[in-house]
């Protein structure tokens, strides 16, 4: 029985040879539907792209009669800001930190929401299921400042966990200032906050899977694990691919907010990432140029990675997000 959700790659050709205009005549409604979205794209996304030129200028917001005019009137400096970024002695280190921390996060945290969604799906008791789902989804709504407060009282050197350790005769672990464990702290707290949230998306995909497939498999004698492997996972595949490609694509955009709130000078070596470094460089300056240059750099990398990852998925798994 063919899995209903297997067909993702658009390769189906329409029945008769369609010219554009005849297609349009038949399906003009589809084009109309696109209009609001396009309006938004053009007005709010594409028009402001002009602001990317700030990355190549010595932007002074008062140079013109309004900030946009000021872009035109500001002096062109080419790649100077990028040079300042890359030539800095710290750049390689913060780049490595960014990649390592995000790499850990993807490696350890990516599979968990999938597993959670599958497990939640197995729970028959409706109230228990809802309770679990809601519980794991709540931490997402706390801002990082509050999450810091919660985990400091838990894992601070004189917090609950360490007090227990000391009582049992062990050494206290300074989670927040020990370079050996700090990255783990970052990964763990991000997981705590976001696993429930990511599970929601996978759960939605699971509900789309035809339940009669499971029955048929059960009748054929397949055990639970087999069912999961052959039915659930393939059913989740398009969603997994989408999430993975995007997460990899955005590998340079770490949770800036999280690290800014959690880190301190003693763990810079392992936790200082590109964005926090640039933030400190620009303290007190409201330097739009540097920030825009960094943003542009991140965007270009993300674009290359997304297109690249998608091509790999297309070749290997025959799935693509477009």
């Amino acid at each position, binding site marked *: 029985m063919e899995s209903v959700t297997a067909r993702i790659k658009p390769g189906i050709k329409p029945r008769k040879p369609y010219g554009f205009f005849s297609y349009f005549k038949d399906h003009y409604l*589809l*084009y109309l*539907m*696109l209009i*609001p*979205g*396009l309006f*938004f*794209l053009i007005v709010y996304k*594409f*028009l*402001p*792209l*002009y*602001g990317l030129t*700030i990355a190549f200028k010595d932007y002074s*917001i008062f140079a013109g009669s*309004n*900030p*946009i005019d000021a872009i035109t009137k500001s002096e062109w400096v080419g790649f100077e800001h990028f040079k300042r970024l890359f030539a800095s002695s710290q750049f390689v280190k913060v780049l490595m930190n960014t990649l390592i921390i995000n790499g850990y996060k993807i490696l350890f945290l990516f599979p968990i929401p999938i597993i959670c969604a599958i497990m939640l799906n*197995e*729970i*028959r008791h*409706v109230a*228990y299921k809802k309770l*679990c*789902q*809601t*519980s794991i*989804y*709540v*931490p997402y*709504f*706390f*801002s990082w*400042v*509050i999450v810091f*407060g*919660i*985990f400091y009282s*838990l894992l601070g050197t004189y917090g609950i966990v360490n007090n227990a350790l000391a009582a049992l005769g062990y050494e206290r672990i300074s989670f927040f200032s020990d370079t050996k464990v700090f990255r783990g702290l970052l990964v763990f707290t991000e997981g705590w906050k976001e696993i*429930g949230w990511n599970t*929601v*998306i996978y*759960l*939605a*995909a699971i509900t*789309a*899977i*035809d339940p009669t497939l499971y*029955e048929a498999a059960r009748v054929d004698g397949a*055990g*639970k*694990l087999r069912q999961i492997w052959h039915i659930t996972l393939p059913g989740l595949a398009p969603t997994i691919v*989408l999430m993975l490609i995007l997460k990899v694509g955005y590998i340079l955009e770490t949770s800036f907010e999280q690290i800014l709130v959690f880190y301190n000078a003693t763990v810079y070596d392992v936790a200082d990432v590109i964005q926090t470094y640039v933030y400190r460089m620009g303290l007190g300056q409201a330097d739009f140029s540097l920030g825009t240059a960094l*943003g*542009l750099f991140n965007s270009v990398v993300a*674009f290359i990675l*997304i297109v690249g990852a998608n091509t790999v998925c297309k070749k290997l798994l025959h799935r693509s997000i*477009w």
Partner: protein
Amino acid sequence: MQSKEKQITNKIALSKSEKVIMAVSYIFMGFLALCSILPILHVVSKSFSSASAVTAGKVLFWPVKPQFETMKYVLEETPFLNAMKNSLIVTGVGTVVSMLVTIGTAYPLSKPGFKGRKIFIMAYIVSMVFFGGIVPAYMVVRTLGIIDTYFALILPFFIVHFNMFVVKNYFEGLPESVEESARIDGASDLRILVSIVCPMSKPVLATVALLYAVNYWNNYFHATMYTTSTTMQTLQVFIYNTINNTQTLVERLVIGNYTNVSIDRIIAAVVVLSLIPIVAMYPFVQRFMIHGITIGSVKG
């Protein structure tokens, strides 16, 4: 629908592997749920306990000697309610608008034969990744004349590209045969979308609606940039202001003889109150997570 499912599964005895997996699932998820909830319960309990119990370290997961002074103070003496109202309006209207636009975009792009599909999708990918910076975005908002209005708070999330891709993915997975038969019967594209595709997609639509609602609810940055009046403060802005100005706030409190109110307490109370709407939404959304309504309408 639910009971029918139950009937089917109850009829077939669960095999051993199924029992094991189910047990593991219950335990694992229960454990995760506890890990998520306990730290929060701890903070919340502190907010409702009396000051002496808190410092004595007596509060674990349930309020000791409960007092509601903090909650009362937050509701009466701060701009909390107005901020809540603003957030509710923006989230409510915004989610509806976003869902309409998203569905309208995802559907055409999910049709394999749609002419110009690649171009539009590319446009979305590019605009997802590249961002012009806050200055031009601010100027767009200002030029449109919507600074300090609810619309300015809705505009940034008019479409969230990720959400649109999720919906598009889902639409692509639906059996074409159902739509085909409808088209043969003479239904227009819009009719098909509304009467057939959407009902079949309830789980994903409910989920994406939730995603949007949360985006709107949690947004802080755009709210601060696009509004200036104190009356347009949203809930997140209020929370951040409170957290950042705790020193001066506490001065007022101590002098005003609110002895049981302290900074952490206020923050905890505010956070708890702000969670209520959004957490209450989730079980509501779960109603739509029903299995496989797709099959049944297509034979052969």
